[in-house]
């Protein structure tokens, strides 16, 4: 409320005379530029306290008393205006925004040093990048020199040889996985076309069949401490799929062949990570169309995977991060992890839940290098590790699961202090 006149001595003599308004006595009057014709408008020092000047004061009124207040304000010559005081909040990061923070900030936030002091750097762990292909040469130029398993890698993208793709989305994903797991061994599974980032679900089904053959082979977990499969891809729009309820549907159908393949790979011992998606309500990807609710489709919401939403390096949800509930599992995403930072250099920002997922995958790989998967010990299963991540998440003051942040932000510092046993 703006008030003018002789007496802006706050607010004692006024309050009994302004209807149902409850004054906010902690809010000091703020000088405002008065409208023409109002005392003080002619002042050469508009924001100095001068007699008769206009100031803004604050109070509260019950919604059903607003008309009563308006009537009282109209009767009081000292009141020059009554205005709403809406809630404001920081605008969430959106795709076109510049990066916020760096990969080094992400390292610090995840306590990568602490993880490494505990011997958790990804050694002996495979990180599978199911994407458009990885450029090992580019990674090396950026100081990332993970191992590479050529035998497990394969490409269904014409002209793309594993490890030798043009630096693009898949390379960014690999870089981000190496933030917490610099000593991991990469497996390049190229299924997305490098130019348009598109593929078909059958490409992923083929990839998962290949991975199952590898992981299911005798002695796999004697040779490797773990295998983390990162998936920074999704279906974006219901129109890409059969309708919900149709037996051919994928998004909501646990019986779809790919969703069953995901379950099978996880039962074999793979830690599977999926990006939640970029169809968040604040600033969704253009491919989402008008669909910005319940956009964690199919395997991205599978009960056997870790579904990862995105927060910036200030731990605020990025505006494009898809929100739950998930289609196959209601309580998705599971966790948030960091995105929209300056990192790989493939683009200005390592962004999207595309980046958040492999950052989380790298943390899992780091944990597995000390807490290896043992098929004879259920306490080491992927489900047990997911529970451990959730129990140690930074809930950001919340209680329970939220559709925006899941169970909270992945907390590498807590995991370093309390590694799995």
């Amino acid at each position, binding site marked *: 409320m703006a008030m003018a006149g002789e007496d802006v001595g706050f607010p004692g003599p006024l309050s009994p005379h302004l209807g149902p308004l409850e004054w906010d006595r902690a809010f000091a009057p703020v000088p405002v530029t008065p409208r023409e014709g109002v005392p003080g408008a002619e002042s050469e020092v508009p924001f100095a306290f001068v007699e008769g000047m206009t100031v803004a004061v604050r109070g509260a009124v019950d919604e059903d008393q607003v008309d009563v207040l308006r009537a009282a304000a109209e009767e009081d010559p000292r009141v020059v205006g009554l205005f709403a005081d809406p809630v404001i909040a920081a605008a969430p990061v959106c*795709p076109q925004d510049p990066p916020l923070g760096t990969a080094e900030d992400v390292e610090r936030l995840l306590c990568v040093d602490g993880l490494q002091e505990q011997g958790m750097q990804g050694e002996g762990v495979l990180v599978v990048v199911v*994407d*458009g292909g990885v450029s090992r040469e580019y990674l090396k130029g950026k100081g990332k020199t993970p191992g590479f398993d050529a035998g497990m890698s394969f490409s269904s993208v014409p002209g793309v040889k594993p490890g030798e793709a043009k630096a693009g*989305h898949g390379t*960014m994903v690999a870089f981000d996985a190496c933030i917490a797991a610099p000593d991991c061994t990469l497996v390049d599974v190229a299924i*997305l076309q490098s130019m*348009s*980032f*598109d*593929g*078909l*679900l*059958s*490409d*992923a*089904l*083929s990839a998962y*069949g290949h991975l*199952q*053959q590898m992981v*299911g082979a005798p002695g796999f977990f004697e040779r490797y401490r773990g295998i983390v499969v990162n998936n*920074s*891809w*999704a*279906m*974006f729009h219901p129109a*890409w*799929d*059969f309708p919900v309820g*149709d*037996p*051919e*549907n*994928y*998004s909501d159908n646990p019986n*779809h*062949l790919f969703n*069953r*393949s995901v*379950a*099978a790979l996880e*039962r074999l011992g793979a830690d599977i990570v999926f*990006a939640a*998606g*970029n169809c968040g309500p604040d600033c969704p*990807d253009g*491919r989402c169309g008008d669909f910005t609710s319940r956009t964690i489709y199919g395997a991205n919401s599978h009960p056997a995977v870790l579904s990862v939403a995105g927060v910036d390096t200030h731990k605020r949800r990025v505006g494009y991060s898809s929100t739950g509930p998930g289609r196959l599992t209601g309580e998705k995403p599971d966790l948030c992890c960091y995105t929209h930072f300056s990192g790989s250099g493939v683009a200005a920002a390592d*962004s*999207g*839940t*595309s*980046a958040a*997922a492999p950052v989380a995958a790298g943390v899992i790989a780091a944990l597995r290098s000390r807490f290896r998967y043992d098929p004879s010990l259920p306490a080491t299963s992927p489900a047990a590790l997911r529970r451990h991540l959730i129990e140690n998440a930074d809930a950001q003051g919340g209680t329970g699961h939220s559709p925006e942040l899941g169970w909270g932000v992945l907390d590498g510092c807590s995991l370093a202090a309390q590694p799995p046993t």
Partner: protein
Amino acid sequence: MSMVLMGIRWHGGPPSLEEVERRYALDPERVDQRFGVVLVDAAEHLYSLRLEREEAAKMKRDESVEGPFGDPQIAAVED
């Protein structure tokens, strides 16, 4: 043409595409040869093949056959 995914249960180890085509009397010209026979779940002896919808419709529906299932587009979660 519209392609679909079909699930088949096959005991005794992974089948070759030729074995599957023979069993279900499928025209190889209408089956995705590059996709082949893909393992879905070894514990369930479940595999997948990809073929034209009209060809899939001819498959005899016994307990060994599931589907069809859709094959939607996917994309990297990035601008």
